């Protein structure tokens, strides 16, 4: 039963235009991340070459090429922004679509008049969503590698490839949390549109509101994974700084930048701690989804007496 429900979800998602549009956008943006990285790389090299020529005429020794010390994966730094924006939105829609038909169109009544338990149903839905997200992340990984190879002419070392895979594993975990949020919001609301609206509200709070609060006076922090330039000695900023581990969006960006070697270096253990809140959110959302499905009255999903 679980497999049949998972397979149905995968098939249904493959044919839904809204989902496909978001998926294509994410993959295009993934490819663009490599292109943008290549353009900025070329610009810096061009400026560097001009500086070297200029310095050579004056007999001054040129400083080292900045890209000689820059890690290869830094070319993909924009992915750390695209995943919480487009990726999370796509995952929300995925979660929403995976539950909405069964709830609002009354298909749930047909399903539960069969030999399907609530447990196998919710497991099937989660498995289906995870399968789709895994395929998307794998496709995104391939696009990233291809864009590095084709556009930048960079062949990844085994270590860099491992880091890129790890980045996409963390991204998969992050997107799973949003897919589950999409499922939970459908189960909490009676109207399909309200479910999607609520899911978007949660996405806004997690992606923008909480990071703004937890990063104090860093107005661009919700978009750019930069190191905190402001001293947070005042009480308010002490509080917001302490609340930062609760911001899954911030933690995702921080962990990702470390994995891609963009941010300031830290130990593997410290990076692992940053992933922990995301994992906790996934577990809480999965438990909540299971609880809501087990208690949901599918007999009243649609028009009844």
């Amino acid at each position, binding site marked *: 039963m679980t497999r*049949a429900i998972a397979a149905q979800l995968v*098939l249904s998602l493959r044919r*839904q235009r809204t989902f496909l549009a978001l998926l294509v956008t994410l993959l295009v943006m993934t490819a663009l991340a490599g292109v943008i990285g290549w353009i900025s790389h070329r610009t810096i090299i061009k400026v560097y070459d001009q500086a070297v020529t200029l310095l050579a005429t004056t007999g001054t020794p040129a400083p080292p090429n900045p890209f000689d010390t820059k890690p290869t994966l830094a070319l993909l730094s924009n992915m750390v922004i695209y995943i919480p924006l487009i990726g999370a939105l796509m995952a929300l829609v995925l979660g929403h679509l995976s539950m909405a038909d069964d709830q609002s169109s009354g298909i749930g*009544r047909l399903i539960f008049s*069969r*030999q*399907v338990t609530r447990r196998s149903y919710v497991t099937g839905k989660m498995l289906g969503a995870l399968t789709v997200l895994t395929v998307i992340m794998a496709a995104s990984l391939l696009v990233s590698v291809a864009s590095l190879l084709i556009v930048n002419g960079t062949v990844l070392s085994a270590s860099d490839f491992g880091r890129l895979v790890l980045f996409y594993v963390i991204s998969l975990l992050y997107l799973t949390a949003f897919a589950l949020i999409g499922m939970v919001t459908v189960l909490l609301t009676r109207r399909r549109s309200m479910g999607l609206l609520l899911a978007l509200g949660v996405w806004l709070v997690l992606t923008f509101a909480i990071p703004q609060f937890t990063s104090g006076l860093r107005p661009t922090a919700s978009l750019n994974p930069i190191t905190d330039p402001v001293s947070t000695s005042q009480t308010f900023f002490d509080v917001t700084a302490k609340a930062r581990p609760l911001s899954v969006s911030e933690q995702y960006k921080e962990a990702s930048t470390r994995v891609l070697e963009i941010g300031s270096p830290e130990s593997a253990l410290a990076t692992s701690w940053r992933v922990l809140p995301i994992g906790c959110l996934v577990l809480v959302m999965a438990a909540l989804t299971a609880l809501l499905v087990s208690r949901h009255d599918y007999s009243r999903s649609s*028009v*009844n*007496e």
Partner: protein
Amino acid sequence: MEEPAVEMQGVSHRYGSAPVLREIDLTIEHGEIFRFLGHNGAGKTTAINILTTLLVPSAGNARVCGHDVIADRSKVTERIGYLPSDVRLYDHMTASENLEFFAKLSGVSDPRRAAAETLDYLDSSELGPRRMSTFSTGMRQRIGIAQAIVHQPSVLFLDEPTSGLDPSGVRQLRETIFRLNRELGMTVFMNTHLLSEVARVCTTIGVLNHGELIYKDSMAATNERFPNEASLEDIYERMEGHPS
């Protein structure tokens, strides 16, 4: 001796403090085509929800083919088929894909074959490769019936099966129900508040009034009991206390 197809003993149900079903006692034997009549809100859908294991009754026992709907849910769902009033399947999937999906959920060993055979039986093979989103109400109803019988259940529950159908669709549905009963031996339990098409297909009727079962008998006995009533509409109105 074979257990009744459907058995309800003292079944009551409440939504909050509002009673919807009041101590229903009902037995339907195998091979019957039973029709539940009643006004909107009489409790017909609640009764079907209980018998299809979707709802746990507040009190009483309900059994289908001898199996308790709560304790033996799995055995009950093996033996029943269900078509809700406003049938909706997955719009992005074809009729065949929908049928295969529901066949899998019923544990059918060869879902593809079962789907094809069911469509063929209902003379709807041409609908198989088409997506549900392209279907009219009548076509959806045919596929709805197909999903309900794809695993060849013993008892078929139909909730307001004629809603939204044009006269030709109603006639086609009536013939299908008749064939399923005669050729495949399915017991049919259906709800309706419309009367016009009732008399020609059902063998037994029950009347629900504000959650109470006020009448249950065979059609033949009903016609004998109300010899002066011109139609089933008149009989129904007399039962509900609105003499015409």
